């Protein structure tokens, strides 16, 4: 019997540690985040959900930790180890042009000639890159200190598994691509032909 008391005593201590760690990690919930969750799941506003979420679930979890605390301790250690060895969920990588994306070395004049935008309804300024001309001028000014201009095209898969195509122009210094200007940024969809039929 004394072993059971010891086991449960250690379980209570483990519960205190797990609860403390959870509180530290959780912090204060932001108002906007709460609004977001409620918008996604309107049931969160119901009393039954509040009771289930705030009373029943924590109580069951506490009983479980006291009863099978070695598992809780193991999971807590595993989580801590994952944080230190950098195997946490990977965040979305920022896009950067790489050497194998480069296509053609061009002058500013050549680029501006090929990027003229014409519209029969005159709903665009007759300037290179049309409505994005100011952004292009800013790009040139920011990179006025030298380097070559290259066109590029990059197909990639995002961390979320989406395929996308990005094309445009990039400043290359000493062979290394740097800042870029986008002309195309589109998602590549694989499944749209399934069940689709041509309408015209």
């Amino acid at each position: 019997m004394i072993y059971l008391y010891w086991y449960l005593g250690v379980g209570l201590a483990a519960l205190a540690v797990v609860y403390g760690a959870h509180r530290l990690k959780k912090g204060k919930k932001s108002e906007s985040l709460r609004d977001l969750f409620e918008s996604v799941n309107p049931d969160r506003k119901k009393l039954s959900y509040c009771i289930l979420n705030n009373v029943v679930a924590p109580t069951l979890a506490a009983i479980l930790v006291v009863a099978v605390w070695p598992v809780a301790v193991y999971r807590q250690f595993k989580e801590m180890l994952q944080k230190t060895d950098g195997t946490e969920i990977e965040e979305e990588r920022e896009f950067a042009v790489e050497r194998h994306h480069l296509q053609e070395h061009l002058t500013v004049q050549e680029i501006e000639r090929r990027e003229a935008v014409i519209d029969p309804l005159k709903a665009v300024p007759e300037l290179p890159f049309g409505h994005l001309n100011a952004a292009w001028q800013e790009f040139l000014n920011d990179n006025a200190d030298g380097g070559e201009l290259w066109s590029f095209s990059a197909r990639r898969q995002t961390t979320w598994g989406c395929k996308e195509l990005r094309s445009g122009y990039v400043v290359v210094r000493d062979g290394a691509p740097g800042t870029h200007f986008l002309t195309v940024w589109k998602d590549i969809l694989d499944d749209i032909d399934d069940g689709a039929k041509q309408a015209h």
Partner: protein
Amino acid sequence: MCTTPLCDYFAMGGFNPRFKLNSTALWRGYVGSWEIVDDRLYLIGLNGTLEDGSKASLATIFPEFPERVFAHWYSGMIRIPQGKRLEYVHMGYGSIFERDLLLDVERGVVVTTQVRQNGVADSEGAPEDYEVRTMTVFPRTGKGEGEST
């Protein structure tokens, strides 16, 4: 429509006046109106509120083109749901309707048009449109969101 071409304009360096987030049902803070004329995509209206509380229109972003803007910056698929709703999804544009009109756009010009058949609604009374409560859409620094046609 369940695509936001103006979002791409901002992501590609176009002037973004910073819209106010009034509601979680409209995170981007504006609604754009679009038109296809002779297979070209045009932005013909914009309603929104800026962070300083003032109203935003097309002229806020394109002062020299307050009536019509050719969306030459946009490349991608525009999805326009049609028919009755088959399945309700309380997130963004996840709900499924009987058909999807898919416009493949290259630099503002529609290159192909397809219709995807998703099924037939069981109920005659099934809604045919997006409702306000379904419009929870999460903005990205890149692409995403949805606007009206």
